[in-house]
């Protein structure tokens, strides 16, 4: 056993391993960058960086063959290599303090990226001028909301997540007087006005609500940067006395569909997944400055009123490009605008590890400065000792 552990140690502290891993990472990043032209940035991240192994699919056979180590594997091995080198090889001396610091910064950077991958959540907050919101919406994930709107002062909401729709069960919920059966779910589909002929084979039709006039046209899932998947589903609601009918829901049908059952009014809608926050924002004014006589944007900014649920905060804030609002562990960025500059779109990011890159940057810079500074000083000393300066 001992020789095996010993050889493992030798393998992992080796500088040669560092060089090989670095070259492999370089190739990975290069190929991934080129592949962005075909796949788009999100798919590339999943395929190359957030993966252990990169697969290549043989087009004829549809066979996925592992061809290259993925980002997690290379990053993980580099991390082990780096830590091993520090534990076993680089003993601490003052001469080496720069290297220790720089490598420490690198370790922190890698860990920070890993934590970001695990923890970071992104959503967006879209507000019209004057509107108040206390939730943000997901970019891709959707949810099915069934809302009891009978009481004018309070809504009762039951939310079913997307994964649930995709698995097609029949669900019974204590707050719902009916069961919900998913007859069909499409991760990406367009909704079109139904034309003379019947629907595509195998696709059920809606018998109630707005979907009666419409047909679902399933589409392949897209990974393109500028395209969005538009999920849709057909749901049958089943009460105690039998089926109430089939409804079509789609992210394209933004208006909730209404139904009355047992004396209560319900709304049903497929909407972007919401995250509620312990504060609300009101958009007071959105400004979009352009350079005179051009369409070149000079600045975007949103003046918002921030009110926390506990009443401790009630103030006005300006969120603008390069100057986000950090509040309650969230960071809100000016991301876009719409509707002739009357709607703002804020990006909402939760990343508990956001400070790590700042620390690691400082460590890297300081470490390299010390290391190269010391080398340069030693070099100059040697030169002065060796060659007499020409007069």
């Amino acid at each position, binding site marked *: 056993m001992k020789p095996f552990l010993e050889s493992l140690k030798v393998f992992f502290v*080796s*500088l*040669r391993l*560092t*060089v090989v891993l*670095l*070259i492999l990472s*370089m190739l990975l*990043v*290069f190929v*991934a*960058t*080129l592949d*962005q*032209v075909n796949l*788009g*940035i999100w798919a*590339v991240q999943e395929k190359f*960086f957030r993966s252990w192994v990169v697969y290549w699919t043989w087009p004829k056979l549809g066979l996925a063959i592992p061809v290259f180590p993925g980002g997690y594997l290379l990053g993980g091995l580099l991390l082990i290599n780096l830590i091993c080198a520090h534990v076993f090889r680089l003993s601490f001396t003052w001469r080496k303090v720069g290297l220790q610091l720089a490598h420490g910064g690198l370790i922190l*950077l890698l860990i*920070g*990226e890993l934590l*970001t991958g695990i923890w970071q959540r*992104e959503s967006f907050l879209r507000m019209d001028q004057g509107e108040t919101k206390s939730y943000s919406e997901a970019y891709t994930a959707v949810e099915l909301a069934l809302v009891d709107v009978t009481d004018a002062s309070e809504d009762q909401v039951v939310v079913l997540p997307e994964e649930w729709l995709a698995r097609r069960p029949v669900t019974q919920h204590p707050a719902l007087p009916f069961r919900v059966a998913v007859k069909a779910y499409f991760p990406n589909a367009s909704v079109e006005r139904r034309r003379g002929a019947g629907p595509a084979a195998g696709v059920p039709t809606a018998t109630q609500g707005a979907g009666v006039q419409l047909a679902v046209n399933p589409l392949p899932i897209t990974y393109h*940067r500028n395209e969005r998947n538009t999920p849709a589903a057909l749901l049958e609601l089943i009460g105690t006395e039998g089926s109430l009918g089939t409804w079509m829901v789609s992210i394209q049908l933004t208006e909730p569909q209404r139904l009355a059952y047992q004396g209560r009014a319900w709304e049903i809608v497929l909407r972007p997944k919401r995250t509620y926050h312990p504060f609300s924002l009101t958009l007071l004014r959105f400004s979009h*400055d*352009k*350079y*005179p*006589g*051009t369409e*070149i*944007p*000079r*600045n*975007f900014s949103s003046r918002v009123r921030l009110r926390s649920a506990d009443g401790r905060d009630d103030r006005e804030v300006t969120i603008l*490009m*390069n*100057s*986000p609002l950090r509040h309650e562990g969230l*960071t809100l*960025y000016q*991301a876009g605008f719409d509707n002739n500059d009357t709607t703002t779109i804020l*990006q909402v*990011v939760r*990343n508990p590890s*956001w400070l790590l*890159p*700042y620390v*690691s*940057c400082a460590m*890297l*810079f300081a470490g*390299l*400065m010390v290391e*190269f500074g010391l*080398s*340069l000083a030693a*070099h100059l000393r040697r030169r002065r000792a060796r060659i007499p300066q*020409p007069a």
Partner: protein
Amino acid sequence: MKRYLPLIVLVLALVYLGTTFREPHGRVGFDLGSFGRIPILLNGRIKPLDTVARTSLLSLQGRQRLVTPEGRSLAPGEWLAEVLYQPEKADTYRHFLIENAEVLDLLGLRPEEGDGGKRFSYAQVRARAPELERQGRLAEETEAQLRSPFQRQVITVRNRVVLYLRLKATLLLPDTTDPAGEIAAMTGLARPGLDATEQRAREALANRLTYMDRFGYFRVVPRTQGEGALREWDTFGAAALAALQAGRESRGVSAHAELAAAWRTGDGDRFNALTQELHRMIEAIDPVALRKGDFETRFNAAAPFSSSMGLYVLAFLLGVASWLGWTEPLRRSAFVLLAVAFAASTLGIAARMWLEGRPPVTNLYSSALFVGWGAVLLCLVLERMYRNAVGPVAGGMIGLATLVIAHHLSLSGDTMEMMRAVLDSNFWLATHVVVITVGYSAMFLAGFLAIIYVVRGVLTSSLDRGTRDALYRMVYGVVCFATLFNLTGTVLGGIWADQSWGRFWGWDPKENGALIIVIWSAVMLHARLAGMVRERGFMGMAVFGNIVTSWSWFGTNMLGVGLHSYGFMDAAFYALVSFVVSQLVIIALCLLPEAKWRSADSR
């Protein structure tokens, strides 16, 4: 003689730079210098007419020099005056660069009808202009990356013609014979109770002014309210329309109309007086605009970067010559030339910074200037330390190469652009962008030093042990420096991204390019430490660093994806490929067995 050579070279170089400050000559009796200094607003930036003239000429025909059909050479300012005020004459100037055979065929032109076989006048193009417009529209419907060479050229030529037509529509009423008279008559057309003829005349004039407002290229009348970069300016057409509606003479409008008339009638004194009047009018509203316009005109005329180009070539040649004989005087002279060229570039970059109110690097063009500047600075330091003429040779090469790249990038228009919202942050431009650009400089310098090592070693017997050691130490030191700057710059970029859109790292092509440079420098340092490469291997890796850096600098922009892409540049693509091939050849030379090196004996 030998002793005084560096001093003589210094004096000659300074005299040469001094001559670049001369005022250009032009039409006799017309103060074209003052005319060129009139500030206008174009693409959100206040700039002098001189800049409009030069950038328009570069866009139209790829150079600033223009020769009239009579064989007279025109300065850019005079050319612009002709286009703006006397278009019937300018229509005969051959200033449209058309090289593509299919486009020439489309326009019914033969190369031998053009100036130098490739430059044509509007008079020659006019008959087929509608067809050009139609083809341009067709081509534009194709996605940029998928366009054929013909489609790309059609769009380019169409845009050149449109630019010219817009210039013509900026300050002169279409089809006028009496610009000042027609504008002066406006006041009479504002009173109530016009008869039918007068009413028709008024409407016709309003239509022509609306056309000028919509189609005119730049804005000439500053409004009195607003400040600095936020002040709105009006086009001549809009200001004239407002005057027509108000029934009052607007001096900002009529002065321009009279200027056109003075040019057309050849009244130099009147022209000069009106130019001065326009200066005074703008100075009263926005004195900074006039001061900057004045400075920018001098900067344009002095053209410090093209002067540096010549000096870099000489520094390179003298440096190489010093390896053959007359070593010390030639080496010192080369150093002096490099220093003077560097000083001229520094002044040029500083001037741009003052004009823009920005840190040195704001776009691809200025990054090319700055990469060269940083590398030459390092070369000067190295030369002070090592005194072996390697500094002037490497500095001359990189300085020249980056200025040539910058020149080609300047052909697409004004190089001082307004920064889009997300980039509008002097703090990050000054830190992330500057640091990363210095990192590029150092990577290229290491690569070029290694090229000197390989070329001298393989092809000449001049690479002795001492030079070899010195070059190795230089490359190593510069790679360390590059690592520091590239790593810091890349992480700073991540922090900027975190600040502006909440993602530290987005795997955007430009970010990946920077990351690859960082990884490559890490590979070099660790491979050397592990003993996997020695001197020669390390040099080969440094040359490969040139490929890595050039890909990150330009290659990533050519992919046409991501937040950092500034458009697809196909001409640059071939240049990049040839550069990569040349570097591969040098690496192959470097890999030749030691015995095949001509310097093998001098070890």
